[in-house]
């Protein structure tokens, strides 16, 4: 096939696609309160599918069922969404990832990894308000309609090309259309941030806390040095751009009203009891560089530092790089002189000493662990070790 024959067809396909890509997106009215969509609509179809998902999540083994924690998060949700309070349901799921999501039928999922990373109630309020905006603006429905019209429109050039036997060109045309879908969801993200921040301020929270959510995540990402796949950047605005937009809007909001509260005490009261378990889950991901940033942030918070230092010791012990045993011992020692070190600190010390061949110190620390935690689940294992290492 000569290039003379190829190019016109390819150009035509791309032009056709540019013409039929979803320029005709119409604005949907906001989600109404207190009602389900009419059964015959495409929206009801989305609700039907998501009702099933919600049922799975409601009965999921990963759900954190603690009533007080659920009531607290639901309360913050209602603070930023008094209008939709009755239409939205919160599910806290055990997962170390940072994530929050909302479904078109009104269920909200918050991962414990996000709760671990929020420093105060205002930051949680921002995350939830962002999600509420996806619901309010019916972004899923908008996105579904957009994909539907784009992909249908795409068929004509695709068919023309496949008949002409031009496979690769069809792929190009597809990429163009998919690009416009991704662009659309990026707009939705921007809208969710902008509307969400208004809700945060209206509820009396300090909107500038939203900036810290992103700068903290950026610090984690930088420490982890990992490359996000391109498609991810396409669907989510780069963090710096997002943080800058939030900073600008927050400045405008705080200039026009009182700065608002950060709710740090309320947040700690509600979450501190769970923090140790969430840190344990975080460590299990074995992404140590990233976890260190989280621990640094918790250290600068200055609350229950013995617990934070214990998990720093655990991090070094588990990572096991050169010099980590010594670092672990130092961290455990700091933990023991601070508030809130769990009995497991002694077990951690014992493991490190044992690893270094210091049986005497190991024995002393194991004994101390078992003395502090008589009903330790690993008692039998430790006693066996102590007996056989004599």
């Amino acid at each position, binding site marked *: 096939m000569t290039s003379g024959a190829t190019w016109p067809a390819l150009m035509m396909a791309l032009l056709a696609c540019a013409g039929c890509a979803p320029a005709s997106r119409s604005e949907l009215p906001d989600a109404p309160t207190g009602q389900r969509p009419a*059964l*015959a*609509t*495409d929206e*009801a*179809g*989305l*609700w*039907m*599918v*998501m009702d*099933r*998902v919600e*049922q*799975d*999540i409601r*009965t*999921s083994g990963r759900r954190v069922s603690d009533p007080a924690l659920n009531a607290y998060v639901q309360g913050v949700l209602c603070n930023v969404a008094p209008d939709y309070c009755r239409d939205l349901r919160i599910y806290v799921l055990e997962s170390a*990832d*940072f*994530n*929050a*999501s*909302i*479904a*078109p039928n009104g269920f909200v*999922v918050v991962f414990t990894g996000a709760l671990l990373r929020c420093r105060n109630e205002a930051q949680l309020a921002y*995350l939830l308000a*962002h*999600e509420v905006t*996806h619901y309010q603006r019916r*972004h*899923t429905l908008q*996105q*579904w309609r957009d*994909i*539907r019209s784009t*992909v*249908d429109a*795409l*068929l004509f050039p695709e*068919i023309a090309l*496949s*008949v002409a036997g031009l496979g690769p060109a069809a792929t190009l045309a597809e990429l163009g259309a998919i690009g416009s879908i991704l662009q659309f*969801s990026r707009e*939705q*993200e921007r809208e*969710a941030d902008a509307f969400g921040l208004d809700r945060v301020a209206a509820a009396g929270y300090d909107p500038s806390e939203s900036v810290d959510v992103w700068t903290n*995540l*950026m610090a*984690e*990402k930088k420490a*982890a040095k*990992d490359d*996000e796949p391109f498609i*991810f950047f396409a*669907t*989510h605005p780069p*963090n710096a751009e997002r943080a800058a937009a939030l900073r600008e809007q927050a400045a405008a909001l705080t200039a026009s009203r009182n700065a608002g509260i950060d709710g740090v005490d309320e947040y700690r009261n509600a979450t501190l009891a769970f923090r140790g378990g969430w840190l344990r889950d975080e460590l299990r991901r074995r992404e140590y560089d*990233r976890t260190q940033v989280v621990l640094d942030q918790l250290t600068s918070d200055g609350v229950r530092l013995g617990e934070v230092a214990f998990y720093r010791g655990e991090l070094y012990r588990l990572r096991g790089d050169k010099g980590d045993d010594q670092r672990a011992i130092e961290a455990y020692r700091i933990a023991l002189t601070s508030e809130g070190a769990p009995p497991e600190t002694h077990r951690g010390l014992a493991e490190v000493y044992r690893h270094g061949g210091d049986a005497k110190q190991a024995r002393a620390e194991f004994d101390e662990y078992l003395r502090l935690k008589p009903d330790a689940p690993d008692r039998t294992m430790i006693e066996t070790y102590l007996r056989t290492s004599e």
Partner: protein
Amino acid sequence: MRVDRTIRVSFPAPARGLIRGIGRLLLSALLLAGCTQTDSLKTSQTFQRPPGTARVLLMPPDVELYELLASGLQEPRAAWTETAKRNVVAAIADLLRPKNAELVPYVEPTADPAAERRHTQLIKLHDAVGYSILVYQYGGPNQLPIKQGKFDWTLGSEASLLQREFGADYALFVFMRDSYSSEGRKAMMVGLALLGIGVSGGAQVGFASLVDLKTGNIVWFNRLISTTGDLRTQEPADEAVKELLHNQPL
């Protein structure tokens, strides 16, 4: 998963994995099948029907209907699904009536969260076992060596809680997915057929299983794959259910 996969529109969620898997699996079998195909399995042990009337608990039929758009996207349709569920339940009742089997409707224990959890776990377990049967029992090359052709799948003794709570001898689980070509899809099928390109239309897939609530054993299982049929109207729905439940042992 990356840390800043932060906030996103959640559709579809990972929890859909298994259900989607079942639908996909049945659809892929369709490619190998003809128009309507059923293929049933029975317990390896001798099936003994209880004397007198058998009480059959009808679990909530897992039915979803979709419109197949020209692009091949499937759009969930709530109104069709509602109608289809009603039709399927009515068809099952009609079919079992002359067999001296009494249909016991399932009632969700909404007022009792603990009971609801137990029930849901049992339903999820059935999803998983049903999926395994489709993969490993029908699967040809996937056949598990340990089964040696035996059909001895079970939900375990926990299933007896349904016997206690509903006074039923058996539970009947029904899973159906149905899709219908949009006008655009039909036009495209015709148009492309003229050009010699084959494009598939809507399809009806499903499975049913009968669980002995004393033991939790799945005593009968059937798979349905069809390119015709319509659950949205009673008569074709009756036909589909008849295919799905043909040679059920009650």
